[in-house]
């Protein structure tokens, strides 16, 4: 839906060649595109304005580094400014107070307060070994208290028993007492969702604050929020004085400009981001990642990290050795498919890579989705051990049996075998792994673990460009082979 800022900027700067520094006229034209990109990313207008002013100041007269296009130069400046605005330093929860330390969660209805409460509680317990009590003060939405109780049960975190008929303030009081008596380190207060113009509810919130004296007050906000983000962040901050922000649904396909708006307006740090429905899908905020996302540049750093986390290093090492010998059998292919799915499937991987927005769209249009991995996995599962090790034995009758066994067609079996052959061939030549992509493939389980120079990554993240990668670059061998095209060879088309 949105073009990436870098591609737009390259259109602006295409006619400029061989210039030493960015002139004011160039910059102004680029600023218009930056403004548009930020607005499409839902950054609030007044925040956009002060932001582009800063970028303009920084960009005019800036020397364009050789081998970098002016467009990339501007992207880098914008990126740096975004990171600066979003807050460079991580801001962990401040629990430095006499226990039980109260953490109060506030926000609009449906922003994800209850889920986030449970996620933070779980994180505190798992990572800091703290004893956490959760209490729901939401007496308004049907079954809200029940929701927190169930989440507590699922994650084995204590919740305050529900007493019907109590007011939120009374519950807060009871929670703090229970926290003291029960020897809890942290008491989390999950308040009811409210619109920030709902005066009585805002008063109630202030009352709860007085009662519980929370050390942290976190505003939970949907990262998909539009221009209203400024209003709501400012109102909540004015009324209760928030100490930090938690952005939810960062796993959506929104650009998350609200993060910038809220941070800029309140000056309060973004402490966590929610990245999924599962109870452990809570991450520390990384300004660079969000900056890249707002600009539509993807995020190569987190791709590598994510891949590194997921892939079993030992297995990858073994595979690398076998690959060098040219022995890449169907068992290995099945492994690849599984790992691909684990790091979020095709779209998950593609979404993280910079500059593939368009390719991703083409892939979606061509109907290639992650179901293909499942089907291919099924085909391999329907083979005997011998067949997996020596695909050469597969003749027509075996293929028919496999197709029947996996609920596919002989044609699909053939496609898989062809893909495997291509991959095995590429493995032999790519086994040594040249350049970053080679190493990244390693990270994806195609070779040994990547040892990527952090400085190099930083540079990539800033320029949004991979060094030494041809224009329609390739995914891991076999999965790619010219992603620039509208469809992937060997992957087939959805019928």
């Amino acid at each position: 839906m949105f073009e990436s800022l870098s591609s737009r900027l390259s259109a602006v700067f295409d006619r400029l060649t061989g210039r030493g520094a960015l002139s004011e006229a160039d910059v102004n034209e680029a600023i218009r595109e930056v403004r548009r990109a930020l607005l499409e990313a839902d950054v609030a207008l007044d925040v956009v304005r002060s932001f582009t002013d800063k970028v303009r100041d920084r960009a005019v007269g800036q020397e364009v580094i050789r081998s970098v296009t002016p467009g990339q130069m501007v992207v880098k400046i914008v990126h740096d400014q975004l990171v600066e605005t979003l807050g460079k330093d991580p801001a962990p929860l401040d629990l430095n107070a006499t226990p039980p330390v109260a953490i109060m969660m506030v926000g609009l209805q449906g922003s994800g307060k209850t889920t986030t409460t449970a996620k933070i509680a779980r994180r505190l317990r798992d990572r800091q070994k703290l004893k956490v009590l959760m209490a729901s003060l939401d007496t308004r939405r049907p079954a809200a208290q029940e929701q927190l109780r169930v989440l507590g049960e699922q994650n084995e975190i204590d919740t305050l028993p529900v007493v019907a008929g109590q007011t939120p303030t009374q519950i807060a009081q009871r929670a703090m007492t229970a926290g003291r008596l029960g020897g809890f380190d942290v008491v989390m207060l999950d308040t009811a969702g409210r619109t920030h113009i709902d005066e009585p509810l805002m008063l109630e919130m202030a009352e709860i604050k007085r009662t519980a004296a929370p050390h942290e007050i976190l505003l939970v906000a949907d990262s998909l929020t539009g221009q209203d983000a400024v209003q709501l962040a400012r109102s909540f901050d004015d009324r209760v004085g928030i100490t930090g922000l938690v952005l939810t649904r960062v796993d959506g396909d929104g650009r998350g400009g609200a993060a910038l708006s809220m941070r800029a307006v309140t000056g309060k740090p973004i402490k966590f981001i929610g990245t999924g429905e599962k109870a452990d899908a809570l991450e520390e905020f990384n300004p660079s990642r969000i900056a890249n996302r707002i600009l539509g540049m993807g995020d190569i750093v987190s791709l590598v990290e994510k891949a590194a986390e997921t892939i079993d290093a030992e297995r990858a090492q073994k595979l690398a050795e076998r690959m060098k010998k040219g022995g890449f059998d169907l068992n290995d292919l099945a492994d690849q498919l599984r790992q691909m799915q684990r790091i979020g499937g095709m779209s998950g991987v593609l979404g993280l890579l910079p500059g593939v927005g368009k390719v991703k769209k083409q892939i979606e249009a061509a109907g290639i989705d992650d179901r293909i991995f499942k089907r291919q996995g099924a085909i391999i599962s329907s083979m005997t051990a011998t067949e997996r090790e020596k695909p050469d034995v597969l003749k027509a009758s075996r293929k028919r049996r496999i197709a029947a066994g996996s609920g596919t067609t002989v044609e699909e079996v053939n496609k898989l075998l062809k893909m495997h052959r291509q991959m095995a061939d590429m493995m032999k030549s790519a086994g040594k792994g040249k350049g970053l992509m080679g190493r990244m493939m390693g990270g994806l389980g195609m070779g040994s673990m990547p040892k990527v120079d952090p400085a190099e990554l930083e540079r990539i993240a800033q320029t949004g460009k991979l060094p030494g990668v041809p224009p329609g670059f390739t995914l891991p061998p076999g999965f790619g082979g010219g992603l620039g095209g509208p469809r992937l060879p060997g992957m087939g088309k959805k019928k």
Partner: protein
Amino acid sequence: MAGEKPGLLRRMFGGGAEPAEDTVADEAREAEAPAPPPALADAPPTAPDEPESRGGWFQRLRRGLSRSSGALSGSISSLFTQRKLDAATLEEFEDALIQADLGVDTAGAVTEALRKGRFGKELSEDEVKGILAAEVEKALAPVAKPLVLGGRKPEVILVVGVNGTGKTTTIGKLAAKFRDDGKTVMLAAGDTFRAAAIEQLKIWGQRTGAPVVARDIGADAAGLAFDALERARAEGVDVLLIDTAGRLQNRTELMAELEKIVRVLKKQDPQAPHHVLLTLDATTGQNALSQVEIFGRIAGVTGLVMTKLDGTARGGILVAIAARYGLPVHFIGIGEGIDDLEPFAANDFARAIAGLA
């Protein structure tokens, strides 16, 4: 504390208690938040010209939109009282629209319509507001369509949307609406993922007297939908409302699950679901376009419900959605009460956005 239970008061006294409350809230808000966005800082405060003439829901919508229309009309008045329509003025006008979440393209189109034939002319505030309302209405009028039941038995309504957009609440309100129209309603608790979602729907079932078909948490939602339809047919209810778990539209596996629910329903009734409603949170920005597109493609959305218009969110994204997808907008949600669901009316919405009353 007098104002401790506002929702209840409001619910009990309906529209009557509102103007007073509105003023109080307005004043308090102005007192508490004295710094409007810089863009609007020089805008004169909008005159509190409460239109008493129009009935309950319009006032509520206006109250809901008051922030947005206040901001908009504020900036428009400051722009146009004594000014010529020149490029700078138009740009500021476009900015005001962008702040209402209309999106860059839609704001540009509306600004262009305003520019045409009027460039360089002196325009009064009312003229500009009128043109704005007309432009917005032009986009919205074709999509303002009520939800019409086709008389099938049961009429199956599937409610889908991103997490936290208000699906379950909307279902509760819809159930009450149909019940008041004399229909028999059955609810299916298809959100088998989120903790206590089933309980939440059951409470709505109690409030509206509608039976709730539910299974345990973690159960297969498609299977539940199938059973619910079977039961609804057997018991001859008029309307079956099926809740679903909230899901982000870019999560392929969750969208596939939704596709399965639709597919399974068709096994019993090829026409089902007769209506697929997508709930959109009014605070959502440009991502709402992606939500409409993908849910539309996968679940075959037939109509939209915009929720949470009782906040300061402007809901201007509806204009962009209408222009691009033309999907009917059936209802707007303006509060948490059981009757806080109103049919969508393009004229009123457009006038409210433009600050005309």
